[in-house]
């Protein structure tokens, strides 16, 4: 098993650092260019949520990202130091007339994650939220 670990302050500029790392880890893992893009996007969403909703952009609170390559599996854990949450909703969310009328233009992150990875898991406590993403070299095992 090979493990790469990253810690960033809760400033969205550093999401780009995680994303760049994700691209290299995905390429090293043997992913196609398209799958690397999926990985980057899923991780980008998770890290931005950790920064914004978990750590409320307090730069003293860190976001940790752990990449673990284990045979055919790439597991990525994104953790924040927030208060935790019980309203993580991965259900389908698309652009529609209603949201355009009301001007609610957000809420796509979790849905995108659920579409882009092979499987995912959430655990949230008063110590923060951990989102675990799993992708398999040949797709869903």
């Amino acid at each position, binding site marked *: 098993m090979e493990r790469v670990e990253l810690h960033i302050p809760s400033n*969205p500029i550093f999401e780009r650092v995680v994303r760049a790392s994700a691209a290299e880890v995905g390429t090293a893992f043997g992913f196609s260019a398209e799958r690397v893009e999926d990985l980057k996007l899923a991780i*980008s969403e998770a890290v931005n949520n950790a920064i914004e909703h978990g750590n409320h952009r307090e730069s003293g609170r860190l976001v940790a990202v752990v990449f673990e390559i284990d045979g055919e599996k790439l597991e990525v854990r994104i953790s924040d130091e927030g208060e935790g949450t019980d309203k993580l909703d991965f259900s389908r969310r698309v*652009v529609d007339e209603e949201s*355009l009328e009301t001007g609610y233009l957000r809420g796509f992150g979790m849905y*995108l994650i659920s579409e882009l990875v092979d499987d995912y898991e959430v655990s949230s406590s008063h110590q923060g939220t951990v989102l675990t993403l799993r992708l398999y070299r040949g797709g869903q095992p």
Partner: protein
Amino acid sequence: MSDIIRREEFGEVAVLHITSTSVDAISAGAISEACQDMRPITVLDFNEVSFINSSGISALLKFVVAARKSGFQLYAMNVSPHHQKIFKMVEMSRFMPTIDERDLAAYR
């Protein structure tokens, strides 16, 4: 105006070339500013864009909202296959269909 958008106009058309490679939380604000100055036909050019996340999608939706308010037409140009896939996932393509560089030539 921010230099994150390179603007080109002819007749009824404004082409907004996004020059940031990332349409993300960092660039979203500067990009969506340009939705305050659209034309009856507005085209967002993604040629130089290699990454879009949901913060970017929110910024792009501001153009959709503004176009609907003014009865303008909004198109996307040079969208990579990956971003076409993402736009389809969130049904963005319904509100911002893609246009071909060639079809645009008719308006020049």
